[in-house]
C-alpha cells in the first residue's frame, strides 16, 4: 500500500462513510441534495448527464443533416391528376418533414439544422465535455485532494452551463438560427432571419463562456494548491497536465469571445456598426476576434482527449509513458502556440504577408502534436498490453487523430488551402480531430473510468462491438468527405450537383453505423448500471491515486489524506494498489531504468 494514515487527519476521516452515490433519505431530498451538492464527483456526474443530453440533441441534428444529403434537391416535372404538368421539388427531406414551401424554405431548414448541430457540438459538448465531466470527477482525486479549490463556484459553473444551454434550446424552440456556429458578420448581425432566435443563441454561447472560465480558474488553482503531500509538478498524471493546460487556454481565450459576442449582440439589437460594413465597420475584425478565441479552443477540445489517451495507454500497457516530460511540455507548448495561429482560418480573406506568417506558425504547432503521437506509440514497446475497450479506443484515437493531424498539413499550406478552404475536406479534417480525437477519447475515458465512477463493470464484448461500429461508421462517414472536398463540394450546402451523390450516400450510410455504435454503448452502460457486476477498486491495475480509493469513491474521496510514494507511471517498479505482489510479477530480469522524473 502506498498510503499511510496522515499524522494530522481531520475530523472527517470517518472509516464508515459510504460511496458518494449512496442516496440520503427519500427520493425528493436526494434530488435536492444532488441539485445543491458541492461535491466535485456529483457535479462531474451532473455535467456528464448534461453533456450527453446535448450530445444526443446534436447527434439528432447530425443524422438529419446526413439524411437530407442522401439526395440533392431537384425540380421534377410531374403530371398532376388534372392532366397538367407541374414542376415539383424533390429530395428536400427536411423541407417535407417541416412542411417547407419551396426550395428557399427547404434549404433554410437544412441551414438551421446544421447550425444547431455545430453550435451544440462545439459550445455545449466538445468544449466543456471532458474537463467538466471527467476532469471534475478525477482532477481532485488524482491530485489526492478532497475537492476542487472552490466547490461552490464549481456548482455555479454547472448552473451557468445549464442556463446557457437553455438559452440555446430556447432559440431552437423559437425557430432556430441559420447563421452557422461561427456567427460570421454581417450575415449574423443584419441578414439572418429571426431576431430573438439569433440573440438567444449568441447569448447562450456568451453565458457558456463564463462556465468555461470559472471551471478553468477552479482547476488551475486546484492544481497549484491542492496536490497531496509528495506530489511535485512532475509527479502529476498527464491527464492533469492536459486539464491544466486546457484551463489556461480557456481562461485566457474565453474573455475575448465574451466581448466579441457581446458586441455582436449590440450589433444585432442596436446596429452599433462595429462589424457592419454598411456603417464603416469591419466584418473581418469579427473573424479575427472570433478565431482568436476559437482556434485556441480547438486545443481546449483536444488537449483533454490527449490527456485521457496518455492515461489509457500507460495503464493498459503497464508501461511508463515514454518521454513523460516531453509529453507534459508538449501540452504547454501547444497551449502557448495555439494563441498565435488563429489566422489560418482566414487564408482566403487576408493579405499575403499575414497569411504567410500564420501559415508558418501553423506548421510550428504541428510539431508538439506529432511528438505526442510518437511518444504514445513508443510506450507500447515491450508492454503488457490488455486488449479491452479502453485500449481499443486508445488505438482508435491514434488512428483517427493521426489522420486528422496529417490532413491539417494541406490546410496549413497556403496554395492547397485556397482550394480546400470551406470545402468538405475541412469538414472531414475537423471531424477527424474533434470527433475522432476528442469524442473518441471521451468515450474511451468513460469506459476506462466507468467502474470507478459508478462501481459497476460493463459487458466487455458488447462494449468492444460498440467501439468497432463507431470506428467503422466514423471512417465511412468522414473519409469519403475528404474526396468530396477535393473534388469541389463546398461545406454548408443543402444540395449539390449530381456528381457528388454517390459519395454523399456512402457517407450517410456510415452515419447509420456510427449511430448504431453509440446506441450499443448506451445499452451497455444502462445494463451495467442496472445489472453490472460490482467493480473492484482497481480493475485495470492503475497506479494513479483514483485507483487507491474505493469504487465508487467514498464521499470524501480518501479515508486518509494520501501521501504520494511513487510516480504516476512507475509500472516498472511498483505493484498497483489493491494487488497482491504474488499475483503481480514485476520484470526482475532487466535493471530498472531511470524513471525520468
Amino acid at each position, binding site marked *: 500500500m502506498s498510503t499511510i494514515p496522515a499524522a494530522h487527519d481531520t475530523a472527517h476521516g470517518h472509516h464508515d462513510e459510504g460511496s458518494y452515490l449512496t442516496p440520503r433519505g427519500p427520493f425528493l431530498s436526494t434530488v435536492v441534495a444532488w441539485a445543491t451538492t458541492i461535491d466535485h464527483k456529483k457535479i462531474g456526474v451532473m455535467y456528464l448527464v448534461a453533456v450527453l443530453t446535448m450530445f444526443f440533441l446534436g447527434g439528432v441534428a447530425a443524422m438529419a443533416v446526413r439524411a437530407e444529403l442522401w439526395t440533392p*434537391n*431537384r425540380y421534377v416535372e410531374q403530371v398532376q391528376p388534372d392532366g397538367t404538368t407541374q414542376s415539383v421539388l424533390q429530395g428536400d427531406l427536411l423541407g417535407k418533414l417541416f412542411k417547407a*414551401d419551396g*426550395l428557399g*424554405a427547404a*434549404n433554410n431548414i437544412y*441551414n438551421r439544422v446544421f447550425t444547431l448541430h455545430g453550435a451544440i457540438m462545439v459550445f455545449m459538448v466538445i468544449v466543456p465535455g471532458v474537463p467538466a465531466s471527467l476532469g471534475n470527477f478525477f482532477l481532485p482525486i488524482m491530485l489526492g485532494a478532497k475537492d476542487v479549490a472552490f466547490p461552490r463556484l464549481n456548482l455555479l459553473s454547472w448552473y451557468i452551463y445549464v442556463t446557457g444551454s437553455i438559452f440555446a434550446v430556447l432559440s431552437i424552440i423559437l425557430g432556430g438560427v441559420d447563421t*452557422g456556429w461561427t456567427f*460570421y458578420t*454581417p450575415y449574423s448581425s443584419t441578414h439572418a432571419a429571426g431576431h430573438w432566435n439569433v440573440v438567444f443563441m449568441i447569448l447562450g454561447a456568451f453565458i457558456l463562456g463564463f462556465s468555461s472560465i470559472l471551471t478553468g480558474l477552479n482547476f488551475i488553482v486546484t492544481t497549484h494548491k491542492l496536490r497531496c503531500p509528495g506530489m511535485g509538478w512532475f509527479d502529476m498524471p498527464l491527464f492533469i497536465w492536459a486539464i491544466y493546460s486546457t484551463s489556461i487556454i480557456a481562461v485566457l481565450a474565453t474573455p475575448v469571445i465574451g466581448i466579441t459576442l457581446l458586441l455582436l449582440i449590440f450589433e444585432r439589437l442596436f446596429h452599433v456598426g462595429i462589424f457592419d*460594413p454598411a456603417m464603416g465597420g469591419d*466584418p473581418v475584425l469579427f473573424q479575427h476576434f472570433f478565431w482568436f478565441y476559437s482556434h485556441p479552443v480547438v486545443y481546449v477540445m483536444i488537449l483533454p482527449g490527449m490527456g485521457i489517451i496518455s492515461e489509457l495507454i500507460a495503464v493498459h500497457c*503497464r508501461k511508463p509513458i*515514454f*518521454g513523460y516530460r516531453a509529453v507534459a511540455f508538449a501540452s504547454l507548448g501547444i497551449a502557448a502556440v495555439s494563441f498565435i495561429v488563429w489566422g489560418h482560418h482566414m487564408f482566403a480573406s487576408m493579405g*499575403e504577408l499575414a497569411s504567410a506568417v500564420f*501559415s508558418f506558425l501553423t*506548421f510550428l504547432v504541428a*510539431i508538439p502534436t506529432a*511528438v505526442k*503521437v*510518437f511518444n504514445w506509440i513508443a510506450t*507500447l514497446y515491450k508492454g503488457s*498490453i*490488455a*486488449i479491452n475497450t479502453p485500449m481499443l479506443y486508445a*488505438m482508435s484515437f*491514434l*488512428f483517427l487523430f*493521426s489522420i486528422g493531424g*496529417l490532413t491539417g*498539413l*494541406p490546410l*496549413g*499550406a*497556403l*496554395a*492547397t488551402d*485556397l*482550394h480546400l*478552404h470551406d470545402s468538405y475536406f475541412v469538414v472531414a479534417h475537423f471531424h477527424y480531430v474533434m470527433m475522432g480525437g476528442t469524442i473518441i477519447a471521451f468515450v474511451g475515458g468513460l469506459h476506462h473510468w466507468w467502474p470507478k465512477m459508478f462501481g459497476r463493470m460493463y459487458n466487455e464484448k458488447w462494449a468492444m462491438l460498440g467501439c468497432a461500429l463507431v470506428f467503422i461508421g466514423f471512417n465511412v462517414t468522414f473519409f469519403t468527405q475528404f474526396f468530396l472536398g*477535393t*473534388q*469541389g463540394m*463546398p461545406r*454548408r*450546402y*443543402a*444540395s*449539390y450537383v*449530381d*456528381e457528388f451523390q454517390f459519395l454523399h450516400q456512402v457517407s450517410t450510410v456510415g452515419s447509420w453505423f456510427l449511430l448504431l455504435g453509440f446506441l450499443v454503448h448506451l445499452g451497455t452502460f444502462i445494463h451495467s448500471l442496472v445489472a453490472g457486476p460490482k467493480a473492484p477498486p482497481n480493475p485495470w491495475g492503475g497506479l494513479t491515486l483514483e485507483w487507491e480509493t474505493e469504487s465508487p469513491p467514498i464521499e470524501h474521496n480518501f479515508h486518509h489524506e494520501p501521501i504520494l510514494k511513487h510516480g504516476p507511471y512507475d509500472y*516498472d517498479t511498483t505493484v498497483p494498489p489493491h494487488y497482491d505482489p504474488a499475483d503481480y*510479477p*514485476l*520484470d526482475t530480469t532487466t*535493471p*530498472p*531504468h531511470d524513471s*525520468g522524473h
Partner: protein
Amino acid sequence: MTASLLTTLAQDSGPVHGLFFRGDSAWDKGVATDGLFMWVFWFSTFWFVLLMGLMVWWVYKYRRRPGVPAKRSASHNAPLEIVWTVVPSLFLGYIFFRGFHSYIDKLVAPADSIELVVKAMKWNWTATYPNGGVSPDVMRLGASDVPVFVMPAGRAVRFKMYSDDVIHSFWIPDFRMKFDVFPNRYTSFWIQPMQAGETHWVFCAEYCGDQHSEMAAVIQVVTEAEYIEWVTRIGQVGGTPQERGLVVARKNGCLTCHSLDGTRNVGPTWRNAYGNPVPLADGSTIPGDDRTAWDNYIRESILDPGAKLHAGFPNQMNSFQGQVSEDEILWITAYIRSLSDHPLGLAALEAEQAAAGEGENGENGEGENGSNGGEN
C-alpha cells in the same frame, strides 16, 4: 532519397490523384497545387503507415499474457526524441515553403489579364466584362439556373470581386482556387483557362443564407475569336422590352429567388402574377385588373422590397435602388407581364406592341405606363 521518391509519385496523376480530383486541373498553377497536395499525401501516408504498422504490430506482439510482466525499457531517449522532432520539422518547413510559393503565383495576375468585375449578392454571381457587358446566359446546374461566364482559352483572366451584402467566396474547384468576397473592399485572384470547350463549376464557398447551395455559376471556355464575338454581342442591349427584361432579370439575379414556372421559391413566382390580386403581409391587397397598381407594385418592390410584402414571404430581398435604371424597371415589368395569362398580361402586351408597329417601338406603350406611375 525518400523525398525524390515521393516527388516521383506525386507527379503521376494516376489512380490516387483520380480519387481526390476530377481530372487534372484546368490551369498549370492548379496542377502545381495538385503536385503539392499529392506530395503531402504520400508524405502523410508514409508516416501514417509507419506509425499504425508499429502500433498494430506491438499491440499484437506485446499482448498481455497471464503471469508475464511488461518488460522494462528506457522511459525516455533524448537523441531519439530530438531526431523525431527535428526531422519532421524539416519536412514541414519544405511544405510551408512550397505552399507559399505556389500561393503567390495564384494571387498575382500578369499585367495583360482580362479583368472581370465579379459582383456577389444573395444569391447570384454577375460578371461585368471590360466593355461594360454583363453575361446574360444561364445554364441549369442542380436545381437552379446559374449564370454562364464565357472566357477565352489561353488568356489570363483576373477577377476583381466585391459583394453587395454579406461575405461570399468565389471558388472554382477545377482551378484549385478561391477567395472570399467582401462587402467593404475588393479582393482578387486570377486564372488562365487552357482548353476551349470546357466548362467549369463555380461555387459560393462562404455560407451566405437560404440559397447558399444554389449560388453557383459556370465558366465556359471558348476560343479567342468566339470570345470576342460573344463579348461584343453582350455589350449591346437589344430586342423587345420583354427580352431586355429577361436579360436585366438574369444580370441582377432576380431568378435565383423568383421562379418563372409557378413553383414557390424564396420570393413569389412571376408566372401568372401580373394582373391578379396580391395578398399583402399587412392584410391589404394589391387589386387585380389594375395596371397602374401592378406597375407601381413592381417598381416599389424593386426599389423598396419591404414596403409591400407579399403575404407568406419573409423579406429577404435587398433594395436595387441605384442599381437598376428606370428603363430597366420598365423592361422587367414588360417581362413579368409577358409571363401572365391574365387578360392584362401577355395578350394585352402583344396587342399593344402589334399596334405600335415594330417591336422596338413597343417601348412607347411601356412609357405610357411609366408616366401613369409617375402621377401616383
